[in-house]
């Protein structure tokens, strides 16, 4: 409850007209950002706990730990995520907050261009890798080794439900996956 209450209070503060319109002073804007960040971090504990309860089926393999980490990457808006960039194997859980089934193209920042994506049934999905745009890669204060974005279609995400995808970098993969620009036209 204290975690949720901090988020509730923060969302209350965000109703102020200066927060809605962006007419707050710069220092206040920074404080708003800090409060939102802290609140989100606090609530990630609740989300992790909930997702672990939902995902702990009775047939669960004993090889997988009882409680998994479920990390949010708040810098995805600048194509940066420490976990997906530095790990050769990771799982991505997608929660659909809408009240209807959706299809969504997912973009994940990665350091290489050779990845395989498995859906919840173990089926390999078509993927594509494109380079992170030059202008984004060159942002001075962006600390990221992601050079590419891995794209796949998360189909039929259930209404107010979730699906988990397994992403791994295979030991051997063909070089022709490397994305290159089409020849320039003149």
């Amino acid at each position, binding site marked *: 409850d204290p975690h949720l209450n901090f988020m509730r209070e923060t969302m209350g503060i965000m109703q102020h007209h200066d927060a809605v319109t*962006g007419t707050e002073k710069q220092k206040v804007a920074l404080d708003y950002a800090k409060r939102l960040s802290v609140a989100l971090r606090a609530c990630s504990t609740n*989300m992790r706990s909930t997702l672990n309860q939902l995902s702990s089926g009775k047939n669960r393999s004993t090889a997988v730990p009882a409680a998994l980490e479920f990390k949010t990457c708040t810098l995805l808006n600048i194509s940066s995520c420490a*976990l997906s960039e530095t790990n050769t194997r990771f799982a991505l859980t997608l929660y659909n907050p*809408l009240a209807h089934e959706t299809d969504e193209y997912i973009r994940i920042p990665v350091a290489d261009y050779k990845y395989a994506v498995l859906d919840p049934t173990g089926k390999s999905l078509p993927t*594509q890798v494109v*380079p992170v745009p030059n202008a*984004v890669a060159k942002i001075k204060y962006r600390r990221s080794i992601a050079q590419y974005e891995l794209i796949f*279609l998360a189909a039929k995400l259930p209404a107010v439900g979730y699906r988990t995808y*397994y992403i791994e970098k295979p030991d051997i993969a063909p070089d022709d996956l490397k994305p290159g620009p089409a020849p320039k036209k003149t």
Partner: protein
Amino acid sequence: SSLTRIGNGNIKLTFDTNGFLSEVTADGMTRQLSQEFLYYEGAIGNNAEFLNRSSGAYIFRPKADKVFFASDRVAIEVYKGPLVQEVHQKFNDWVSQVVRIYKQSNHAEFEWLVGPIPIEDHMGKEVITRFKSDIESDGIFYTDSNGREMLKRQRNHRETWNVKLQERVSGNYYPVTTKIALEDTTARMAILTDRAQGGSSLQDGELELMVHRRLLHDDAFGVGEALNETEFGEGLIARGKHHLFFGQSDRRPGVSLKAMERLLQLQTLLPAWKFFSNMTAYSSDQWL
């Protein structure tokens, strides 16, 4: 052909030899459509006079109706694959964009990146993206009301009094929370935003949205500082997305462009939440 094309069976975009968008093909028709980045210079006023205030956090007020081009030539790179086709555009050192069309989508995505806005010339700047089509909108366009109903707007007009605008640009700007659109009897163009922005249609067939602003003077409405984001030294960089829908204005009920816009509006503002778990120690079989 020297033209660059990306697209799928639903929508196709053509880029001219200078790298600018020039044409859209969707819904059984091909129409002229350009898109570019421009900026207004912010007004510097005398804040002691109510009618002569500077452009600032509360008010958008260009120095003149004049608009400046961010670039007249765009460097582009094209990436085509099985899931998405992308054109990476560089307009100048502080404006770039990726235009993409996914395999199964019926719209185009414009992911813009603007900033840090240069101020070495001591001029505040308010950057816009402008889509220009040949749709005969006759001064009418639509903006949403907090993501709910669409409100009809008429250029240089107010519903309940005779207006004579002294400031033609800002006087025609309206809040856009999620969508701005225009149409004529044959075609419709709508742009969905990922955040609240200001927008307008200053010429028939045109839609413009303000994406970023950096101003050097307080507008004296209360905040007491310029919208300059000096805490970050060089100024902020903003990144965001616009979704472009183009098609026939009148279609069969149930499959209308407006219905598709509404669905994407929900998906844009409430996308799937992403949670990452480290699986280094577990194979895909163990994970399954």
